């Protein structure tokens, strides 16, 4: 049994909160600069240039890339031979988010009750997904999620007869409805199969895949490429102000499902597709 202290988890998440909100991963930076080169709309090009400049300022002057520093979504991949010492894992995670968002001058965007809507003042609680895996590894992934794009995300419970065309149309519908609201160029995460909630979690996880990488399943890879091409024909463009660079990536995950169902979840993320990964 390997022991990991709750304190080290808190420290890691505090640092990850600050890191994720100031520095975008190299794959996303590369995707943005390639989009700027490829964009044919002058205004779209100008928007993309502003976004690249924004990334430089964020890193150089330690200003969050986006003022919506998100709700903290945390994926925990924990080996079944790991024992957490010094307190509950959930408390350790929330304490890390609290520390990072307070000490890092990040925005507190969480309300304690969805209808009473009083800000919790420290951006907690996080949304936490746990995976128990074999071995004694421990991996944390933090993906702060802004709600401009989260609000435009959708779930479709399709009929099996609607097939792959139904799935593609669902994704295109979600992207078209999102339009300028989701701060394009977007990254589109798609979860196909499983149950209602499994599809949604897969769509969120799909956003973690580095831009430019594809599914290992040949037909899924093909679908990702086709969807990206179709999305970039919608004309929405950077900032929704017209152009060809509407999405930077489409990432699809699949899972077995029920004989009666074909769930499709589309989780839309803006170009500020943040994540930070640590192995303890």
């Amino acid at each position, binding site marked *: 049994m390997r022991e990991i202290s709750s304190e080290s988890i808190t420290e890691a998440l505090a640092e990850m909160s600050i890191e994720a909100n100031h520095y975008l991963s190299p794959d996303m930076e590369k995707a943005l600069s390639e989009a700027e080169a490829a964009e044919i709309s002058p205004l779209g090009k100008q928007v993309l240039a*502003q976004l690249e400049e*924004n990334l430089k300022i964020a890193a150089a002057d330690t200003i969050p890339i*986006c003022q919506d*520093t998100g709700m903290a979504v945390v994926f925990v991949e924990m080996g079944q031979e790991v024992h957490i010492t010094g307190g509950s894992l959930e408390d350790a995670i929330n304490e890390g988010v609290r520390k990072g968002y307070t000490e890092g001058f990040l925005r507190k965007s969480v309300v304690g009750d969805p209808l009473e809507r009083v800000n919790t003042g420290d951006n907690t609680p996080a949304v936490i997904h746990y995976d128990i895996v074999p071995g004694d590894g421990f991996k944390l992934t933090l993906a702060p999620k802004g709600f401009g794009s989260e609000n435009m995300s959708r779930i479709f419970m399709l009929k099996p007869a609607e097939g792959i065309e139904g799935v593609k149309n669902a994704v295109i519908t979600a992207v078209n409805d999102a339009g300028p609201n989701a*701060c394009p160029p977007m990254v589109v995460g798609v979860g196909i199969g499983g149950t209602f909630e499994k599809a949604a979690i897969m769509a969120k996880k799909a956003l973690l895949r580095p831009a430019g990488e594809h599914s290992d399943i040949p037909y899924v890879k093909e679908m990702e490429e086709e969807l990206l091409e179709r999305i970039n024909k919608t*004309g929405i463009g950077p900032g*929704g*102000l017209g152009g060809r660079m509407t999405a930077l990536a489409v990432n699809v995950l699949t899972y077995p499902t029920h004989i009666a169902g074909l769930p499709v979840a589309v989780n839309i993320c803006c170009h*500020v597709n943040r994540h930070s990964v640590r192995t303890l």
Partner: protein
Amino acid sequence: MDRKINMPLSKEDALSLSCGDYVYLTGTIYTARDAAHKRMYEALRRGEELPFDIKGQTIYYMGPSPAREGRPIGSAGPTTASRMDKYAPELLDLGLIGMIGKGKRTREVKDAIIRNGAVYFAAVGGAGALLSKRILSSETIAYDDLGTEAVRKLEVKDFPVIVVIDHEGRDLYEESQKQYRIE
């Protein structure tokens, strides 16, 4: 067309702006987003005054991240305007002349823009660090308890925005998407 405009926006300037214009704003603007709009709406229902005189003013839909020491404000990009659509027509009828945000507006908001000779600008979503550099000062003037959602008075310099809906009701999102769509 690139233009520099002083804020508050004059009636003449508002009427001279066309959908697609790239504009740099300098002067005073106010921030208000979801919770502040709800409070202003409730204040109006009770027959109370708004926390600032909105006649001829521009509201920026924005809730900043906290300012680091020695800086006026943190990251400061636009939030999605459609969540304010329920409240915007009434504010426009009360004299609000400009709105800065991102994303589509309803028919009702467009009609109120046309009726009042107002304008809706978009700032680039997700460019909060860059935009914060164009804000010279920030002062919380109402609803302090709302934190990031409080009403702030900002002084901006060369703050970059694009006219999305002009006083004639033309909508850049609709026009430009059509221009670049491939059937």
